[in-house]
């Protein structure tokens, strides 16, 4: 039930009680769902153990396709991780008001998807401990890669930096809410929140520091956000040996694709949060509307990059490259995957989002955002695998790559794992930032212009005062 004060705003008491309903109490569906997810996650760990014992033979990876579903999923999760900074940092800097209920979920999604992405190169290595030999000490003389400037070396560094920065970013934004939890809990939990709240009392200086910290971290995170997926794209783009990979457009193409899939994942998550916790007063249709508008622009830019990537693939008139593209687009089963990729990545969802009725319909937004991520996963698969699978002159064996059920399960496991982590997080920390919501209520108003009532927002500005 919506509770508003005499100025037609959601009261702070109501905001606290509703947004902490997943933290201070447990929804009925929580334990059954967590149990099921835990079951699937444990099975995933067992399968991973089996793979370590028997090696990569349990997967479909074989000559010449050594990068398959695991690397595709690695790129996919790195892409999803772009949701947090896109939503939180960019929209914070541009003062987009509608970001407020979305930021926390996006930041958490960033952290958990990055942590999951980091696991995939380990799984992909088969005998995971061998990564140690490859990286430490990593000297140019080994000749595995040209030198330590390899993107394969830069990847873990960039992702770790992004993970550290995102965690700090999340923590800084959590502090005021941790103080609220500290003041509403007892016993062990109170002690836990007291330590994390860092003595927050909400005095003007603390608020100022919190705001400045948030903006500074936003500005610092932006270059890291761009660099992470660019570096991942250079894993492929700097390689001249594989057809279809050596393209200058890969870095921005990967980044814009990541934003497309990441923001879609946030839409999926917001719908689930609204349904699961009943936060209808806080996650409202207008937030889906704003996200869908943003997605329309991002998706169209992404489509432009896709077009340029394909155009320049055939521009060079190199026979092998053209043969690869023919295989990718016209030969079964790649043609089916390509068709599904285009349909789900753009052709179905974007025209839907042109209609306000769709943009404000939570169920349709949920399903269209799922479609996007099916398409974006396929996009990565179609970039990585066909170039390796096509018959080339110096490879003595070649065949189409079929992922084993093992690999499919690990993909499924990754979704269960991220969802489980999110649910566990929701029991300890609020998924919608309380202070952002309260600030929004204070800053929002409406005025009459002619006959229309128009929503307004107050924007504070820097200024000097003199006596």
């Amino acid at each position, binding site marked *: 039930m919506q509770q508003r004060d005499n100025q037609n705003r959601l009261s702070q008491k109501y905001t606290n009680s509703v947004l902490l309903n997943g933290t201070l109490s447990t929804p009925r569906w929580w334990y059954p769902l967590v149990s099921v997810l835990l079951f699937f996650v444990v099975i995933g760990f067992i399968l991973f153990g089996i793979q370590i014992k028997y090696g990569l033979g349990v997967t479909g990876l074989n000559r010449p396709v050594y990068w398959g579903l695991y690397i595709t999923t690695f790129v996919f999760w790195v892409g999803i991780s772009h949701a947090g900074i896109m939503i939180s940092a960019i929209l914070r800097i*541009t003062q987009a008001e509608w970001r407020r209920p979305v930021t926390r979920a996006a930041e958490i999604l960033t952290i958990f998807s990055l942590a999951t992405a980091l696991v995939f190169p380990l799984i992909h290595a088969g005998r995971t401990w061998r990564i140690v030999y490859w990286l430490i000490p990593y000297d140019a003389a080994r000749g595995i890669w040209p030198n330590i400037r390899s993107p394969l070396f830069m990847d873990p560094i960039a992702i770790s930096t992004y993970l550290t920065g995102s965690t700090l970013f999340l923590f800084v934004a959590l502090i005021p809410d941790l103080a609220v939890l500290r003041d509403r809990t007892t016993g062990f939990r109170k002690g836990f929140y007291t330590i994390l709240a860092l003595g927050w009392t909400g005095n003007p200086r603390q608020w100022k520091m919190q705001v400045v910290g948030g903006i500074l971290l936003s500005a610092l995170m932006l270059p890291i956000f*761009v660099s992470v997926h*660019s570096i991942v794209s*250079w894993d492929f*783009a*700097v390689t*001249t040996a594989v057809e279809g990979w*050596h*393209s*200058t*457009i*890969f*870095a*921005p193409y990967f980044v814009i694709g990541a934003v497309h899939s990441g923001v879609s994942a946030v839409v999926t998550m917001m719908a689930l949060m609204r349904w699961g916790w009943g936060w209808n007063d806080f996650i409202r249709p207008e937030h889906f509307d704003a996200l869908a508008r943003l997605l329309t*622009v991002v998706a169209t830019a992404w489509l*432009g*990059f896709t077009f*340029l*990537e394909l*155009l*320049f693939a*055939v*521009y*060079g*008139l190199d026979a092998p490259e053209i043969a690869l593209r023919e295989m990718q687009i016209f030969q079964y089963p790649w043609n089916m995957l390509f068709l599904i990729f285009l349909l789900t990545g753009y052709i179905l969802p974007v025209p839907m989002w042109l209609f306000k009725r769709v943009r404000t319909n939570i169920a349709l937004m949920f399903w269209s955002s799922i479609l996007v991520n099916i398409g974006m996963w396929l996009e990565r698969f179609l970039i990585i695998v066909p170039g390796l699978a096509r018959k080339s002159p110096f490879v003595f064996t070649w065949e189409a790559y079929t992922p084993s059920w093992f690999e499919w399960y690990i993909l499924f496991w990754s979704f269960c794992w991220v969802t489980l982590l999110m649910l566990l997080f929701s029991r300890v920390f609020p998924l919608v930032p309380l202070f952002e919501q309260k600030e929004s209520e204070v800053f929002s*108003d409406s*005025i009459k*212009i002619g006959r*229309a009532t*128009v*929503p*307004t*927002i*107050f*924007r*504070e*500005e*820097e*200024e*000097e*005062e*003199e*006596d």
Partner: protein
Amino acid sequence: MTIKGHHKEWPPSDPKIVKDELFSSTIKGSSTLKLISKILGLLSILGLVGLIGKFLIDGGDQTQWGYVAATLAFIFSVTGGAPLVAIAPFIAKANWARPISRMAHVIGASAIVVNIIIMIPLLWVLPPLVVEGARRRSIWFEAPVYSPHFWDTLSLIMLAIAGLGLLYVSALPDFAIMRDNSQGFRKKIGNFLAGGFVGSTVQWSTLRMRVGVMSTLYFFIYIFVHVVISIDFSLSMVPGWRDAIYPMAHAMGGIQGGVALVIILAWIMRKYGKYENYLNINVFWALGRLMFATSLMWIYFFYSAFIVFWYGKSMSDNAWLDLLIRGPMVYVFILGMLFSFIFPWWWLIWNKVRNSINGPVIGAFIALTGVFFERIRVYVPAWSVDPKLIHDKWLTVIPETLYPDIWDILLILGSISFVVLTVIFISRIIPFIGVWEVQQFNLLAKPIKYIKAHGIRVAKPD
């Protein structure tokens, strides 16, 4: 206690004062402006002489036309990029851009004549798709041999029409004001252009829809023009140069130059048009941030290409580096890098610089110079490549450095002068700050004091 903030300069709330002040710019003119116009006119004529001289002397030699192509690329991209400064905030419903949106649209329509004039001889020297009996690499594949000539010209004309359309549609209410508040020739022009606009509810909602449609259309045409012209007039003239990000980097350079032009024009209007209340520090602050962002985007697109070529080390990758980075234009490359990225980045990174009137304009001049160097860095070597090598898999003979001759210099000066002259000419007809835009701005934004803080209350209608 007095407040020193952003709100000392704010548009007057009285619509009549706004109308009178803004329309006064179309009427008043100083002797200095007349003198400047005469000098620009003279330079424009010299530019035309330069183009004709170039055609008569080097008409048969493609390798000598790099500076002409670079000039065309520079002018169409920076003037064409300016309207995007108005389009993006319009879509995002950002009020701060209302005072500069007219200027952005005017700049977008200012280079139509120059673009077409320079394009004509370039079409003459641009090689067809079939050279010495074989097809060269191009994005037109099996299309008719003069497809680049046709489509590139058509795309420039489409951009011109879209630019004019956008300017016209967004100026409709001001034409109606001109019709209702002037006499003689101006009244006739206003009557003709206003098209019966009386400000009914339907007309206002139609106006908003039209501006939205024209803005979207303009954006897509702008990108299309950059794709076809950047490829046909530079990339496809170099054997083995395959660079998928190049059209987008080209467009980004244009947008960077467009933002710079808007800042410069806004600064001139503020200083010499006495529009401090309209073009206040909020506008320059926002534009400064945009300028900073576009500089960062430019370097990102450049580096995305550079790292792939530098790391790839294939023959064609090395040829790219030899031709466009460490080759005949190495000094222009260094200048381009300094002016397009390093100087504007280091200058505009400081909030105190962005949050000032003069800071962004200095950054804008620097960045605009950078875009010019960048166009020379790419177009001159691309056109200098020996046409006999066009079918090679990659470039094996790197051309010598080509310096501009007197005809090139005249053309560069003349074409830029003619664009400026066109802007001055348009300023005699349409106010450079949209009257209706400012009046809507006043309805939607208002400086207020909120508890202890000062800020702006911004209304965001659906």
